[in-house]
Structures are given as structure tokens and as C-alpha cells.
């Protein structure tokens, strides 16, 4: 008995590490696009890093963006094809370190794109270096004694910056457990709805586990999000604009 078949866009198993959150988030994006009837019109600008594994296993039109520039690539796409659903899919090193300027300016312009932002607190693909989102005291390969915020500054809560801007939708979810996965799916849906209604910039941050680089089991990684990560990055909807431009 098939309770729920997987979305067509997930046409082959993903290639992420065991216990990685990207696979869940990829699937949520695919489910939302399919449920909205948008998967045939969707175009993704995919980041460098772990996200770059996505085009191999995600069956929609995708562009491999340069490191950090996915939002700008998406802006170029959306301006040429405004009737297509256009999103960027980026990790935290990509969107907030090297791509901070491109990330913020898409929000500043209120560009009508959706950004799916995966926060797993480190540079995953390159072996677990410190990212802007790394928690205070968190050990990484470039903060072996734990992140010293006197030296690096505090973990970057980008939604706190974006909520001062005139954007359409901001939310932060997580993939630790079914309830939060379903809530995150709702956020992703609302973000794409905002784009469809031409409301402007929508951004969903997703707290995601990286068991490989956190040196934790998949279960402990989920527990870590629940007990620790959410204290720095609170979940919820931070901006929502409806109907202004519909």
C-alpha cells in the first residue's frame, strides 16, 4: 500500500551523507512545487557546497550558481521569466559568508524570488569549517577550541537583519522530527505562494543536521537541533505580507 508516493522531481535517491537534512528539504521543496502544480515551471539556482548535489537528483530545470551568487542568478532568471517559479537553494557558508551581499541585496530590492536557506552551522562539503551560523563555542575544523565570538563575531541570525527590510515573507523552520518537518513544509509553501502572488522576496531558513561534521549520530544531531540550535535560531514566521500586489 502506497500511503504517499514521492514527488516526481525526486526521480532518484539523493546523494547526501546518512542523516543529512538536505534530503528532507529537497523533498519538501519538490512536494510543495508539485502540490502547487509548479514543478514544470520551476527553475532553481543551486548553490555551491552540499547543495550542489541537488541537480543530480532533482528533476527540474536547475542552474548551478557560483559560490554565494545563487540569489543573484535567480534574480536574472526571474526578470527574464517572471511567470516561472524561481528559487535559490543555498547553504549557510554560501548564502551568508561569500554570498552575504547577493543574499541581502535580493532582499533589499524585494526581488520576487524564493530563497531556501539551509542552516547546518558549518561548511559541510569542504569538511566542516566554521560558518557564519556556527554556534558560540561550537567546534569545527577551523575553530578547534570552539567558536570564540570575541574573535569571529556572534552567530549570524540573518532573519533579524532581513526583518528590518520590506520583504514579503520570512520564516525559520527545522527538520528535527515530523511536526517541525510539516511546519517547515508549510513555510516553504507560503514562501512560494508569496512569489506566485508577486508579493516579493520570500526566505525560508531551515535548521538542518550535519551528522558527518558534527561528529554526532543522526539521532543525536536531531536532538542537538531541538535542545541547542533553536536557542540561537528561534523558529517561526517573522514577516508575512499578503494581498498587497495580488
Amino acid at each position, binding site marked *: 500500500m502506497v500511503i504517499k508516493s514521492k514527488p516526481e522531481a525526486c526521480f532518484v535517491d539523493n546523494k547526501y551523507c546518512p542523516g543529512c537534512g538536505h534530503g528532507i528539504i529537497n523533498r519538501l521543496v519538490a512536494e510543495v512545487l508539485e502540490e502547487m502544480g509548479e514543478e514544470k515551471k520551476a527553475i532553481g539556482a543551486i548553490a555551491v557546497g552540499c547543495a550542489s548535489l541537488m541537480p543530480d537528483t532533482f528533476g527540474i530545470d536547475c542552474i548551478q550558481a557560483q559560490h554565494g551568487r545563487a540569489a*543573484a542568478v535567480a534574480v536574472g532568471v526571474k*526578470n527574464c*521569466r517572471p511567470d516561472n517559479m524561481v528559487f535559490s537553494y543555498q547553504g549557510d557558508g554560501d548564502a551568508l559568508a561569500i554570498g552575504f551581499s547577493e543574499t541581502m541585496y535580493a532582499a533589499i530590492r524585494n526581488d520576487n524570488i524564493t530563497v531556501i536557506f539551509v542552516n547546518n552551522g558549518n561548511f559541510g562539503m569542504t569538511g566542516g569549517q566554521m560558518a557564519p551560523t556556527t554556534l558560540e563555542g561550537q567546534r569545527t575544523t577551523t575553530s578547534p577550541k570552539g567558536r570564540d565570538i570575541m574573535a569571529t563575531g556572534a552567530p549570524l541570525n540573518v532573519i533579524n537583519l532581513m526583518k528590518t527590510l520590506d520583504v514579503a515573507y520570512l520564516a525559520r523552520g527545522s527538520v528535527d522530527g515530523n511536526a517541525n518537518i510539516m511546519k517547515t513544509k508549510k513555510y516553504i509553501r507560503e514562501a512560494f505562494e508569496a512569489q506566485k502572488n508577486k508579493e516579493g522576496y520570500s526566505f525560508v531558513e531551515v535548521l538542518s543536521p550535519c551528522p558527518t561534521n558534527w561528529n554526532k549520530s543522526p539521532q543525536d544531531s536531531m536532538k542537538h537541533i531541538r535542545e541547542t540550535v533553536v536557542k540561537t535560531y528561534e523558529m517561526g514566521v517573522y514577516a508575512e505580507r499578503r494581498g498587497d500586489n495580488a
Partner: protein
Amino acid sequence: MDKQLMKGNEAIAEAAVRAGCKFFAGYPITPQSEILEYLSWRMPEEDGVFIQSESELAGISMVYGAAATGFRTMTSSSGPGYSLLQEGISYIASAELPCLLVNVMRYGSGLGDIFVGQSDYWQTVKNGGHGDYRSIVYAPASVQEAADLVRLGFDKAEEYRNPVTLLSDASIGQMMEPVDLPKIIDHDPDKYDWTASGKGERKFNRITSNMYYMDNFDEYISKKYKTIEENEQLWEEFHTEDAEYVLVAYGISSRISIEAVEAVRKKGIKAGLIRPISLYPFPVKAFEGLKDVKGLISVEMTKLSQMAEDVALASRMKVPVYGITGGTELYEVEDVVESILEIVDGKAKEVI
């Protein structure tokens, strides 16, 4: 026919609009800012999009996205700003997307200066970005030619699915000349099957380094560039038939060089000129017919004789290669003539 007096930069911008370009993203930098300013009002008139991006990095990234959709798109910059485009250019070439890039050269490295110069030859022609790729590079010597090469550039970019760069300079960009522009054309962004446009009923497209999904990529990409090198060389010759000394100059330097050739011919020196119009591919065919040449003279507004290496290669190193250099201000015809006379008198050192 609507011949009008236009600045080089504005002619480039209008020619792009008339070639069906519908998306421009760029950042202010002298001496190319007129392209940006012109398109800021002109693009919307033709239902196109103009974005003043937060940086050249963002601008070329937007152009990358736009190119992926099948629309005609371009950006322009100069010197330090052109350096920042290199990341995106490499990605665009790697994904085999067409677009037009414009580098209105200034002078010098680092901040350099906004004066006339041709010091971006190496970066533009030899690639500033990483990896195995080339951009087709055209160098206009007049406002009219700048406009003509914009149209040709968009066509060649699509024919080869490759970026094309227009290497202009501050003089051509800022001077006003009469220009005859063609009628505006519509470009159909849906005529290609490789675009990111929403998969619809077809298989999805991946816009990325084509090496990932091609078994014979090495052979394919080398053949692509060999084809360009064989078929796309453009140049003009002037008095080369009996020349013993052949000047080689592109863009603004070629105009001064023509006058210099005429001046030294009056002194009995058999001089000629090869004017490369395509810098990649470099017009090596122009050098095949040269006989009894005593010296090739690369005339360029750079202190390091950047193009001279290509001149030497094009002549198979069989002829001495000299350089006449300049920049920051235009050399006068007399300056070039004097340098030619020194070369003829055996007083000048070879570049290579």
C-alpha cells in the same frame, strides 16, 4: 537609415537593444558608465530589464541566470570591474551559455586610471577566469564598428553557445562619430532546447559545467574552440602587400597606426598594418601571406606589449617583433613614426 551622431558607449548600448537584448545588469565604472546610464531608460522602453547591481559579481551572476533562460543579455565594465566579472564568465563559458560582455578599457593595474589604455588585452583575450575556456573577443576601432560587432557578437555567442567580449577602450567609448544602426529585431528565447525555462513536458535541463554529463567532453570542447579558431578570424590589412615592416594594432591604436604607415611610406619605408578585429581567435591567417618582412611592430597602449606575444606566435617567431607602447594619453602619429624609424635604423630592442 537613421545615421546619427553617437558616443561609442551609447552606440554599444543602442546596438544591444536593437539586437534584441532584453536584460542588462551592471555597475558604474568610468569610462563605461554611459552604457549603464543609457540602458537604464532605454531597456524599459523595449520591455527589457535594467538592473544596477550591487557589484560586478552580482551583475555577472544575474547575466548568467538571464543567459540560462535563452534571452539575449549583456553586462559591461572596465578594468577593476572587469576583474570582478571573471568568476561569472568562467561559469557562463563552462555551462556554454551565450551572452555579450563589454570591457571599455582604461589604463593600468590596480585602480589604474580612467585615461586611455589597452592594458586588459591579456586578461580579456587570454581569460581572467579559471579553467579551459575562451571568450570570443572583438575589438572595434570606430563607433560604427562597435555597434556592428555588438550585433555580430550576439549572433556568434548563440552560434557557438559561448560568451563574446567586446574589447573597447576609453577613446572609442567616449568619442562621438556618425553611426548607422540596424532595425530592432525580436529574439525568440524559446527557440533553443537547452534553456532553463521550466521543464514543461520535456526532460529537465541542467545548466552547469557541461563536463559533468558528457562522455567525450575533452574532445568536444577542444573541437569547439578549434572550429572557432578556424572560422572566426577577422582582420583588416592596409598596405601589407609589399610591406617590410608590418604594424599590428587594434582598436584606437590602429587608427593612429594607419596614419603612421602613410607618414613613413612618404619617407620611403615600406610599412603596412594588420588590424586584428577578432583578438580571440587571433587572426594568424593574416600573417601567413607575409613575405620579406623585416619586422613586426605591435602598437598598443600598454607598457608591457601584451599583444606582442600573439604577434610573435602568429608569425611562428620567424620575424623580429618590436613593440611601440603607450597609454594614459593617446600617442601622436609623430611619436609612432619616430619609434618606427628607430626600429628601421636598428636602434630598437625586440620585445621577444
